[in-house]
């Protein structure tokens, strides 16, 4: 239970198309994260799956049953809202029990289910409190408890952690992953935070302006972004983009000339034209101090020292901004020109329209031990 299929789903508000035709299949037991910048339609997508928002065209099927015209409660979903949406006048117990009371379950059954959920979420000693007396993390767990007791086949989360502080957020990320492992239900999770997406998802759906940009596992998105947008969105700090010009392509890859004058041969698939405007992408973590295949000179402007590593923001001679993450023990200081290098196999190459030339990376070898 918990298989989901979206076919050509669209949504328009007035005459604004907020979700463009979207096809998506979500397998049972997956932890799918919709990620994208604010306003790209993540919540709308989730609310259409929940049935809180009607879809303008297309079909949504849950477990093989088309649910377009079926009320939320009959879809077998449960939703956790960003603002928690707890009932402030009810105790924690009553909040969690609410869906069961609506469903008119027997008293004993309600009691048993609520206590089981409370135990799972470590809320047993808070059952008689009101939401106003709980911490943010506890409120979030109550909201999750209210979803759990319904025993839905699909859980929907709309930015559930964005109201928590950083420490609590990373704690809750682990708890949510643990919850997913223990319940095994399908979970659909919406966030604008790519770290949440990378850490929790088994499958990430990247959205931009109502369009699915790429669907894939976290590592697939990280190592083989389909386009410049995904490459820039996934990964922190953001990937560096350097203008380049195509020279030639062969079986070994594409040869390009960077705006800094450097000529490189990158191991990517697909052919390029001579003179084609391209863009090279290199992640800040893949830039190293000193020599490597390719070298760029940079003058650091700001050095953020995090201890274990330093984030260096600087500029090249050709006024190309550049960011690098280097070991925290390496000598670097603002104003002193530094030589950075990178391995050409780590570089990404994008065409003028943003699409990526496929990199030759074996994803299997990345996860195997």
């Amino acid at each position, binding site marked *: 239970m918990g298989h989901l299929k979206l076919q050509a789903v669209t949504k328009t508000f007035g005459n604004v198309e907020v979700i463009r035709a979207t096809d998506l299949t979500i397998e049972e037991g997956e932890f799918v994260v919709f990620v994208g910048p604010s306003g790209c339609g993540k919540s709308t997508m989730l609310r259409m799956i929940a*049935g809180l928002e009607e879809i303008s065209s297309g079909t949504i099927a849950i477990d093989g049953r088309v649910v377009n015209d079926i009320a939320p409660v009959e879809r077998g979903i449960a939703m956790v809202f960003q603002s928690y949406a707890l009932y402030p*006048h009810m105790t924690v117990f009553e909040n969690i029990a*609410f869906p069961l009371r609506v469903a008119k379950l027997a008293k004993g059954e309600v009691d048993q289910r609520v206590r089981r959920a409370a135990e799972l979420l470590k809320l047993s000693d808070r059952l008689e409190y009101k939401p106003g007396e709980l911490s943010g993390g506890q409120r979030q767990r109550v909201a999750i408890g209210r979803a759990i007791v319904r025993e839905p086949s699909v859980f929907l989360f709309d930015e559930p952690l964005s109201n928590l502080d950083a420490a609590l957020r990373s704690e809750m990320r682990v708890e949510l992953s643990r919850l997913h492992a223990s319940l095994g239900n399908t979970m659909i999770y919406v966030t604008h935070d790519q770290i949440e997406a990378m850490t929790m998802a088994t499958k990430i759906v990247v959205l931009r302006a109502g369009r699915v940009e790429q669907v894939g596992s976290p590592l697939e998105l990280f190592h083989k972004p389909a386009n410049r947008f995904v490459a820039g969105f996934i990964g922190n700090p953001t990937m560096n983009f350097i203008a380049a010009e195509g020279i030639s392509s062969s079986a070994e890859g594409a040869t390009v000339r960077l705006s800094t004058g450097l000529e490189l041969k990158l191991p990517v698939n697909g052919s390029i034209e001579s003179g084609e405007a391209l863009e090279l992408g290199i992640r800040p973590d893949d830039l190293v101090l000193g020599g490597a295949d390719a070298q760029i000179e940079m003058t650091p402007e700001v050095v953020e020292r995090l201890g274990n590593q330093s984030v260096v923001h600087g500029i090249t001679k050709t006024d190309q901004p550049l960011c690098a993450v280097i070991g925290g023990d390496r000598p670097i200081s603002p104003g002193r020109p530094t030589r950075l290098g990178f391995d050409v196999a780590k570089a990404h190459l994008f065409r003028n329209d943003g699409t990526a030339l496929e990199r030759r990376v074996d994803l299997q070898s990345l996860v195997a031990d």
Partner: protein
Amino acid sequence: MKQSVLDAPVRKNLIFVLPGLLLYSAFVLGPILAAIYLSFTEWNGIARPDFIGFSNYLSLLTDSNFVTALKNNALLMVFYCLLPLFIGMAFASIVRSLKGREQMAIRTLLFMPYIMPSAVLGIVWHWLYNPAFGPINQILKSVGLGAIALPWLGDFNFALPSVGMVATWYYCGFCMVIFLTGLQRLDPSIFEAARADGAGAAYTFRRITLPLLLPEIRIVLLLTIIASIKSFDLIFTMTRGGPANSTLVPNIYMYQLGFQLNRYGYAAAVAIVGAILIFTVNYIVHRFVRPADGGSR
């Protein structure tokens, strides 16, 4: 630390409060104290007041006019408090579901009566209710309902409800606005959560909206109860307490006693009883209509 003039001792700062305090004493506190004193006297407005202790209050207990006035006032509370409460809440939920300009227009229309002086409205409604040429009866007659075209304000049974309906009309826009702000205060996703959990409209209203609007319900009750006990201008301009005392309320009675019969001491006692009533009823509302959410357990 920087010293402000306000850091001076309290008695020095009193100077800032003094102008307000003087005005308050002259126009509010003084008259209240004077009224309390007068209520223990017999006074015709010219001679010296004679102190007679609790006699005025004792006479009130057996004064059939006063008892009538209290009964009428109790009935008026239905029109001043309960009807506006329910109608206002219904309006609020309807208006909330409207969008943009329509909402604005309807909200303004419904609130309009409240911004007019009620004495003016009394005169307008007195004319609307006019048995011979008032529009209400004209319309009733023109649609063939001449049989129920009553002399509304002149009928012993209908005068009080007729006046009451005007009060309802006057206050329900006000109540609606209060409830609208109350609904805006609530997190909309609460209602979505309830919907996702399968709660129907009635269930959601009973278990969620109503309890969460208790603070607004309390305010509405407090304000309309005060208004109902203080009611004077609407009634004065429409019926002057008649016919045959059928719309007599304590404040009208007080007016008659004081300014028509020159029994100022007795009239003051009526006023004091009215004030005590306001305090009592408000205390009861305060005590028993409690917000159910948050804070202390």
